């Protein structure tokens, strides 16, 4: 068995006395779409923040393609091949769509500031290729027509799509999507779902967090469920749906009757 693509090992994190993650173990294989769900406050975004170097773990380790990335600064994590989108959209509003995506390519542009100053051939070549690639990525999310508009002028749904295009710009091996469809209407969700499927088909590995069960079940081959900072279930959509701990996590535990009723409701909610 080869080394897991991404492995999270006994990871824990507290903030001033409040424990957010406890002994989280998770292994994600290469290829495909992996889901991470759980009630609010379960620690999902914290997990992303730990993976991308925004936070340092208190204990445990994170390994990506065999190398430890826990504790690395974010820009180095990016260079290793991890990329992400944010729960609260973090676009560069005063820059155009193309420029936003080109920022995403920062680590890949091979020229130095001196080269830029001298407008060397290397600079010019790299910049024009970057621009082309940016437009290509925008086309993947059907936004090429708006390439020169300011990101701040986009609609909410379009902003999320731009974040996705920008995250792809660094040629990541693993793409972390934090609530990519939050706040979108059904049509937009379907569109994005297809775009993510196509992205995965191109060979990118995707790990996503979301609360929309239909969306998650429809996309992800494997799903991990987080609650109170621990992984309580791992499996396919069907397995998760019927897992007692998961049901309890979302609905709480009452007496037997309520439980029966709860199980039916839960199943309905998760389909």
């Amino acid at each position, binding site marked *: 068995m080869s080394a897991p693509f991404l492995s999270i090992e006994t990871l824990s994190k507290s903030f001033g006395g409040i424990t957010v993650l406890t002994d989280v173990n998770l292994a994600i294989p290469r290829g495909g779409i992996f889901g991470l769900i759980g009630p609010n406050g379960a620690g999902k975004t914290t997990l992303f923040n730990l993976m991308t*170097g925004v936070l340092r773990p208190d204990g445990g380790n994170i390994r990506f393609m065999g190398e430890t990335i826990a504790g690395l600064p974010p*820009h180095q994590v*990016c260079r290793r091949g991890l*990329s992400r989108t944010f729960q609260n959209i973090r*676009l560069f509003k005063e820059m155009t769509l193309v420029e936003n995506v080109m920022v995403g390519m*920062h680590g890949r542009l091979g020229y130095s500031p001196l080269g830029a100053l001298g407008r060397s051939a290397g600079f010019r070549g790299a910049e024009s290729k970057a621009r082309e690639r940016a437009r290509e990525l925008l086309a993947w999310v059907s936004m090429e027509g708006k390439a020169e508009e300011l990101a701040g002028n986009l609609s909410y749904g379009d902003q999320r799509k731009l974040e996705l295009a920008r995250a792809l710009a*660094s040629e990541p091996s693993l793409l972390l999507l934090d609530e990519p469809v939050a706040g979108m209407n059904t049509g937009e969700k379907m569109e994005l779902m297809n775009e993510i499927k196509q992205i995965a088909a191109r060979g990118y590995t995707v790990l996503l967090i979301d609360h929309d069960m239909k969306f998650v079940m429809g996309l992800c081959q494997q799903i991990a469920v987080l609650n109170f900072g621990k992984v309580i279930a791992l499996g396919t959509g069907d397995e998760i749906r019927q897992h007692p701990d998961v049901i309890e996590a979302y609905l709480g535990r009452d007496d037997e009757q309520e439980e029966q009723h709860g199980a039916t409701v839960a199943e309905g909610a998760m389909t």
Partner: protein
Amino acid sequence: MESFETFWAIHGSLVLTAGINSLLAISIWLTLACGMLAMANAAFMGIGAYASAILTTTYGLPYPVGLAAGVLVPAAVAFAMGKPTLRLSGVYLAMATLAFGEVVRITAINAEGLTGGALGLNGIPPYTQWWHVVLALVATLIGLHLLRRSKTGRAFEAIKEDEVAASQMGIDIAGHKLAAFVLGGALAGLAGSLSAHMTFFIGPNEFGFDRGVEILTMAILGGVEGLLGPVIGAVLLTLLPELLRGLNEYRLIVNGFILVLVVLFLPGGIWRPRAMKSLFGGRAAA
């Protein structure tokens, strides 16, 4: 030609001062452009002025050597103090740099053997030619313009807008901030060296808080969105006391008022290319 010569004889030094102030305003713009309020540039100006002047005056070295020192010494100091200081953010950084300025001033006063102490350095040879200033300013503007339209320029803009997102794009935040700080220090040092060799005399109180505020005011007045903003602010603030004759004494209070009024009523400064472009149609640039 005669009218130009007369004009230059009367106003030459004013034009050159405007040019030097432009360099200073650009030096603080560099750090403002990546979201930092650092008030150390008056100190770097002083360090550059003293370094170059000491070499040319006390040691009789040629001007190019003096200028080189005037750029490299402040840059080195900026690098050394920048690394730990730039970890601080916002208010802490502003105060630390203000304090640094005071430390430099106190050092200049106390290091009498080297700097002439409170009495300053006299008899600095008048090496600065008009083309030195013009060359420095034009080279700086062109260089920065080229950088802005490259990954470096985009990186700074990204850092200014959202550091967390920028770092996730592979941008080394600490490295870029340090680079901006060091480059700003070098520019301020250059301005100081050019100025010292134009005014024949420098004293420790020229590079203190008042000067720092003046530099900040120029940048804020002009606006920090585009590269021309600081230049416009510098030119205006240099010319204003001249245009309003007799207002020279009130220079400081005018600076104070401008600072308050611009912050209150004209937050983006005067030069706002994006707002103007959207007013007149077309894409934002510059």
